[in-house]
């Protein structure tokens, strides 16, 4: 099946710093989503981005489907950005499954 790899696995930032999280996937996908799981376990949908670039405040994401990767940019990080960021893909021909990566664990220090 499709493999979803996220990097880095762990990231510690000083408040105000910028960061880039990467998601590589091994096969063609028909959708890609980025999620933030906060310290209380709630998964929040950040972006639905099968291709192209989207921005939402301090967050933006880019997916290059032909090269099988997506990037999530966090600018001017805040302590509330801490948590785990997941990339999740829907493989072509994979029915309705969404396959999650292992996540990037982010801690933002005050």
């Amino acid at each position, binding site marked *: 099946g499709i493999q979803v790899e996220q990097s880095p696995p762990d990231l510690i930032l000083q408040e105000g710093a910028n960061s880039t999280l990467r998601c590589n996937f091994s096969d063609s996908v028909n*959708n890609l989503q980025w999620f933030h799981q906060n310290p209380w376990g709630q*998964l929040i949908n950040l972006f639905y981005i099968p291709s192209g670039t989207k921005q939402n405040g301090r967050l933006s994401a880019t997916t290059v489907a032909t090269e099988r990767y997506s990037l999530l940019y966090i600018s001017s990080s805040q302590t509330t950005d801490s948590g785990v960021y997941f990339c999740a893909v829907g493989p072509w021909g994979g029915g309705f499954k969404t396959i999650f*990566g292992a996540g990037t664990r982010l801690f933002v220090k005050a």
Partner: protein
Amino acid sequence: GAGVSQSPRYKVAKRGQDVALRCDPISGHVSLFWYQQALGQGPEFLTYFQNEAQLDKSGLPSDRFFAERPEGSVSTLKIQRTQQEDSAVYLCASSLALTNEKLFFGSGTQLSVL
């Protein structure tokens, strides 16, 4: 409702007990998914409903796991004869469309089997 609601938030079961976990999706959402998340890992797909039809149950780990959505709204995930390896967070997600696009997740049920 405003979001996906799951209950109970926490469940402790003795090994061998049966448990039932409830999911109330966003009103009007056609698609409903169940995921299992082990500690420190990403969610793993269990099963998918489109309205009341269970279209994919390939992720259910054993025949002890059973899910239903009889009226196309509320769903229940039932685990029979629970085992310690069933301990995990069980997440429910819903989507407006007939696909797995733009998933909205509930807060999950944390199941601990002693």
